[in-house]
């Protein structure tokens, strides 16, 4: 019985019998045509050329899982890369050209896919935050009716939820905290179970947030290393989310970037006569919110200008320019603060 094997190389599909080449199907000798086949292979598809070669033969050894979908194949050792392009009158340089085409398409697809994941994850992060806060408010105001002294003792909502979830009644919680349970109305057993259920949901919610937050910061650092370093990974993630993706963010002027995330405030300003918002997401950066109030606007403007440059590097070139940008920004901030102090000395109320 002859022993058959099929091997796919970048320029064609080759069939061997007892180690001799017996059939070949070459790909069109154009980089895009080859790149398209490389994509099909990478996404687990059977190539037309492979199917043609497999139809009508039997018991063909293959190495790839995707080829096992064809009835004629079985798993087994396959001659590796035995053919050379020159043996088939092909220019070897096509290999690199096709690989570059394919890599560019893969980058494009992945970057925007990652952006979409990030947008969803950040939106969900905000939602869980909101739900958690609402549940904590409920737990606090409800449990306060029964044990005001205990609620006052614990200032972290999740911590309070942990205590309520873990202990059977307020006396047990009081013992755990080593405080007097104090006054408060008695607890119906069913009411206590309900409170425990609420508390358990809060604890669970808080736990679920940890991997989510890690995912968001790591993805932001990977997608946008320059923005993440210049600001923080969390701010980078939110800027990308508000812009709707890294590529979209890279298209925005600094003035827009400065306001990203302030949309709701802008809306309120227009409809409810609220004061105009000054800063969006980047306002969360310590460099801005720890600055003197008079300087914040200028610093936010300076930071937004650097973020715009960082976003273009992250989206377009992948160059690492965060160090330079940080140094430039720091110099600009020092300048702003020097001018601010001088103004203050001249007598304005600073």
């Amino acid at each position: 019985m002859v022993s058959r094997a099929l091997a796919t190389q970048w320029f064609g599909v080759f069939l061997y019998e007892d180690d001799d080449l017996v059939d070949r199907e070459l790909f069109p000798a154009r980089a895009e045509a080859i790149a398209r086949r490389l994509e099909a292979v990478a996404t687990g598809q059977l190539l037309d050329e492979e199917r043609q070669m497999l139809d009508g033969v039997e018991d063909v050894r293959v190495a790839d899982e995707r080829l096992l979908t064809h009835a004629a194949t079985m798993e087994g050792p396959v001659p590796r890369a035995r053919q050379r392009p020159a043996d088939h009158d092909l220019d070897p340089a096509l290999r690199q050209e096709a690989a570059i085409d394919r890599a560019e398409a893969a980058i494009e697809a992945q970057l925007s896919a990652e952006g979409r994941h990030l947008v969803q994850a950040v939106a969900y992060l905000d939602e869980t935050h909101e739900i958690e806060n609402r549940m904590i408010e409920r737990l606090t105001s409800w449990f306060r009716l029964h044990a005001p002294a205990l609620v006052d003792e614990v200032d972290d909502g999740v911590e309070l939820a942990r205590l309520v979830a873990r202990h059977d009644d307020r006396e047990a919680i009081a013992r755990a905290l080593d405080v007097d349970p104090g006054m408060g109305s008695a607890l119906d057993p069913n009411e206590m179970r309900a409170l425990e259920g609420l508390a358990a949901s809060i604890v669970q919610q808080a736990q679920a947030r940890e991997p989510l937050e890690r995912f968001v910061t790591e993805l932001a650092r990977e997608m946008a290393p320059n923005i993440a370093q210049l600001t923080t990974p969390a701010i980078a993630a939110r800027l990308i989310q508000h812009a709707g993706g890294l590529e979209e963010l890279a298209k925005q002027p600094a003035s827009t970037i400065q306001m990203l995330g302030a949309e709701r405030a802008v809306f309120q300003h227009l409809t409810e006569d609220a004061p105009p918002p000054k800063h969006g997401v980047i306002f969360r950066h310590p460099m801005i919110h720890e600055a003197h109030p008079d300087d914040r606007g200028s610093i936010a403007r300076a930071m937004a200008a650097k973020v715009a440059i960082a976003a273009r590097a992250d989206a377009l070139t992948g160059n690492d320019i965060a160090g330079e940008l940080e140094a430039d920004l720091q110099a600009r901030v020092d300048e702003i603060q020097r001018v601010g102090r001088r103004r203050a000395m001249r007598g304005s109320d600073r």
Partner: protein
Amino acid sequence: MSRATVGKLAAYEDAGGEGFTPEGEAVVYLGAAGGERAAAIARQATSVLAVEKSPVAGLRLVERAKAQADLVPVVGDARQPEAYGPLVPELGLLVQDVAQPDQVEIFLDNADRFQPERGYLAVKARSIAVDRPPEQVFDRARERVAEEAAVREIVSLDPHHEDHVMIVADFDGASP
């Protein structure tokens, strides 16, 4: 990324390793990042297929490849050698620097598929286990590689890369 420091292969030679001689060989480099080091190897080798998972690093890798004919970029996961298999020529050397928990298995899977003559595996202890002493992690990695190949050397990359070793292994390379 350790861009400013000595590369893993240079650190290995620095530490007295037998040496890395890509002249005239086809090379696969897994975990190429922006391709700085893969490009340097490509100047000596017949070609380097450089595999990098991160699309952001991939941007730099592709730019570099455009300027250098023998650097062939792949933006993909080294855990899926099927995806770039068609691009791999008859292989001389496999080099890997991916800093992943399953780095040893990734290396062996690729070697099994592409049958290089020799492989260079940079092992980062902390990627595999933070709670075990590095020596123990390295021993386990060496044992695992030895199940599939002949380990030639295991060289510490200190002081350039703390808690890293390079494992050099010979595969028999015979085609089926």
